């Protein structure tokens, strides 16, 4: 099976995230011979927007208060918030780079997480259905997410931030492979 295409816009993202600092620790999360495909860097923008939206209910009132009351006190509360914001904005690209997937002969690997890392192995034959989702913001930035479902609710195999073409390709490919390797429960 040929690794057909990788997302076209990921020259900087791929490879860069594969820099193991300590070989031994990294190993179980980077099985040998597996080539990970990174997701679109546009996911960084979408997620950063999400962070901003999430913090806005706290940031906006404080800023307004500062301006209206002409006092510096609310800024004391603003400072930690801004620190959190800066940390999240710094974290998001690293998290996005940590997301990856790999199509193997018989199963799909999905990797995610920096602090809490996980790799999920989903055999194609176990797939019950595939979801392709795209919210309004996702569509604006031309990304969508693909999620695989097995008969187990524990299977956490969603790949966010795929370009629509790649998402459709992956969906069809997974469906056809699932059919070829169909197994009961």
């Amino acid at each position, binding site marked *: 099976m040929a690794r057909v295409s990788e997302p076209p816009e990921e020259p900087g993202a791929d490879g860069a995230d594969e820099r193991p600092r300590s070989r031994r620790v990294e190993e179980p999360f980077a*099985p040998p011979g597996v080539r990970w495909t990174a997701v679109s860097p546009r996911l960084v923008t979408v997620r950063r927007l999400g962070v901003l939206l999430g913090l806005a209910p706290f940031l906006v009132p404080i800023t307004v208060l500062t301006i209206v009351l002409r006092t510096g006190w609310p800024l004391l509360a603003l400072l930690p918030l801004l620190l959190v914001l800066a940390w999240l904005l710094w974290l998001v690209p690293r998290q996005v780079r940590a997301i990856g997937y790999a199509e193997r002969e*018989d199963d799909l690997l999905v990797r995610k997480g920096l602090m809490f890392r996980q790799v999920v192995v989903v055999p194609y034959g176990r797939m019950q259905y595939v979801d392709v989702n795209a919210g309004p913001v996702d569509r604006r930035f031309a990304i969508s997410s693909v999620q695989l479902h*097995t008969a187990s609710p524990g299977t956490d195999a969603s790949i966010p931030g795929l370009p629509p073409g790649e998402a459709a390709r992956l969906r069809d490919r997974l469906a056809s492979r699932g059919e070829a390797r*169909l197994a009961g429960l």
Partner: protein
Amino acid sequence: MTATGGPEVPAAGSADAPADEAMDVSPDAPHTPAAPDAPAAPGAPEADGQWHRMHPVTPVVKGWKIIAVLLAIYVQQTGDNLFAGRDLPGGTELLVSAGILVAGVVVAAVYSALAWRMTRYQVGPDAVHLHSGVLNRTQRQAQLDRLQAVDVVQPLLARLLGLTELKLEVAGGAGSDVKLAYLPEAEAQRLRNTLLARAAGVRYAEGEDAPEAPETSVLEVPVDRLVGSLLLSGTTVALVVAVVVVVVVGVVLDTPGVLLGFAPALLGFVGATWSRFNRGFSFRVATSADGVRLRHGLLESRAQTVPPGRVQAVRLSQPLLWRPVDWWRVEVNVAGYATGAEQGGSDQNVLLPVGPRRDAITVLSLVLPDLGTPDDPWEVVAAGLEGATGDEDPRGFVGAPRRSRWLDLVGWRRNGFRVTDRALLCRRGRLWRQLDVVPHERTQSLAIRQGPLQRRLDVAAVLAHSTPGPVSPGVHHLDAGVAGRLLDEQAERARSARAAAPPERWMQQRSEP
């Protein structure tokens, strides 16, 4: 036909009949399946491909609940009035409420009768169809080769009237079952046998009944042991402690009101314990060609049949209080069986409510006849049940390294797994001992996980995902390298085990040698 008996092939045999050697009971039985709706469709008279209705008494059995609810509301209302210091309802008031009650009953009766009229079922050679609903019509079809389990349920009232509910479980989670309620007892039994025979891929000649697969009784749970297990539970201990505290407080502070406030909790406890007793009463396990048969229940009796290969995962567990008597509880994941809050206390997932180790392992061997180990399987299971050796287990379990004790102070020695040719055994829990067994061909997907602390200690967890149920197998705090290898090898083992798995229609022989 390949090992993965294609579920998308509705009539097993339409395409690959020559290869399929169905177990024909009579010598001149048809080798090709009967066409749907053909009168020749064999088995029970109810399974003739025609549309049937439920037993006409059904609305009464189903409707009494509505009447009970109405009565309860009425009684509560009057009770409230009484407490509010008002007088007992006078003549007119009584008449009005009685009128409302009667109207409610009439509406309920008419609705139930309509619902009964609209409910029809049809048993075809490959599927069961159920049409129901008055306003919202539902047509449900259950594919027989997807059948996960068949339950015969008899609530008290239905039992008194000789009626039975037949529940066909297909793998769609809670609420995906096809309920045929209520059928006369004999009819339900015949139908169950026929359905199981058809699901198994056994075909019978025209007009011949599918006999009930002969079953061998394996074990039963005596009442005294069941009562003992309920007494030796955490809730009982908590209750005793609570009662002592309440009584002491009540006496010291001289406020008997405390006792009154405690009454609801006491009632709740009694209710929960009663329902566990009710469900576990006269629990019997038997085995037959159709799979494992479970019968239990005091007021509502239930007979479950779980065909071979339908059990996705097994858990043997032992609460701390059961350890002195070495009792174990066995639970299973079966696709389609509801879990937790959804199941409404039906306990479908329990394979053995309480039993000595011998019984627990016997039950395990029923659903997983071959553990696939060259060693003595009892030894292997025993090591999983009680072994607490860390990573130096002489009995073949691969444990968590000593450095993981910082993450799991009490139980780290118990964390471990063992792989046999057929299954993955995961053990954990020092106080609440658990052993999870997953056949390789039943793993849905696998995951490896590592948090920041685990990363510092170079350990990781491997999880095997199973269908919804009480069992969620996984091994925690394994050495990261070991975990990585386990993940890789387990994925491979699951793949080859699936390729060799018996067909969905379990009585059909494999076409391959």
